[in-house]
């Protein structure tokens, strides 16, 4: 697992352990009651899932890259993004440091490779 792939965090054992509580919280969002409970009191909900300091700070910052660094996995984080009303292009733009328009253009450009 020592392989480096540019701009990509491999979600392997180390990340899976690091992010366990954060991803577990996100997994709970499959249940609408839990989404409501999270929105009603985020701090209490994060307490319940024993999020680490790094995970809480990542969530507070709103930075997806920080959430990934804190062990978040794309498939579970997507459920959090849904709650926060972020689409995949908002998230793509944020992570690549582009405007949403520029990010969409980047996608289109790849059709012409």
């Amino acid at each position: 697992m020592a392989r480096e792939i540019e701009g990509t965090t491999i979600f392997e054992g180390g990340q899976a352990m690091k992010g366990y509580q954060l991803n577990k919280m996100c997994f709970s969002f499959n249940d609408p009651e839990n989404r409501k409970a999270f929105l009603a009191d985020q701090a209490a909900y994060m307490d319940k899932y024993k999020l680490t300091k790094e995970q809480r700070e990542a969530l507070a910052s709103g930075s997806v890259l920080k959430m990934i660094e804190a062990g978040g996995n794309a498939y579970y984080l997507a459920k959090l993004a849904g709650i926060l009303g972020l689409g995949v292009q908002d998230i793509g733009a944020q992570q690549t440091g582009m405007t949403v328009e520029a990010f969409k253009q980047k996608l289109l450009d790849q059709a012409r490779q």
Partner: protein
Amino acid sequence: MARIIGTLSTSHIPAIGNAIAKGLQNEPYWKPFFDSWPPVREWLAREKPDVVVFFYNDHGLNFFLDKMPTFAVGACAEYVSEDEGWGIPTIPSVRGEPKLSWQIINGIVEDGFDPVMCQEMAVDHAITNPLLLMFPDAKWPVTIVPIAINSIQHPLPGPKRCFDLGRAVGKAIEAWPEDKKVLLIGSGGLSHQLDGERAGFINKAFDTECLEAMVSGVEPLTKYSALDVVELAGAQGVELMCWIAARAAMQGEVKELHRTYHIPISNTASAVQLLSHTRAVETAKAA
């Protein structure tokens, strides 16, 4: 004996479910993708598959990291579409084909695979979107057998292992004594990456290589490791493994009936490909 009639492979992007729910099929953004489906539906109406075997990946609905399977085979009488947490409408439950499920489980364990055997299984957009695209009235004329391939937590099973799984599943299906027509589905991809500084990565050249291999045979793709696929197809492009397994299940002659490749839907290179199984190996030999 059961007969594999073809492999249908398709992207399953969540937004497709929302577009269907909102009736956006003819909007310019969506038209290129949805236009691929009338010919597929005509073929389905003509060929009338009885059972659909889905190679797909769960997106954090049915499985969590507490117990993450590499491969999981459903053996349920019914599969329930459940809330995934971000608004894709659920669909009516789909009937299972438990006898075929156990036929497959017994066959692949015999052949050296270590599946999780599931008697309760919620299914997500990787199953529901293809079903809705095939049967827009949501009156399912087929039963299903879902086979989940881990695409979340590394180490992922790579192209070679998924190819071998497909082979073993195909062999088990063809040994099933029921006189049923079985359609294979590869659900996922193609190239895309949602996370990291490389978000939005798409690789048209690699996707084209894969689409060609789906026709001529996917064995050459087994030279790649799972991490090669991450690099070439993006972090979530590993869903390609579902296409490889579905195609590998079908031996003998195939014919490409339909192909759509369109960039982008959401952050993804979308594709739909229909292959018919014109002659099984045994028939070919006998001829």
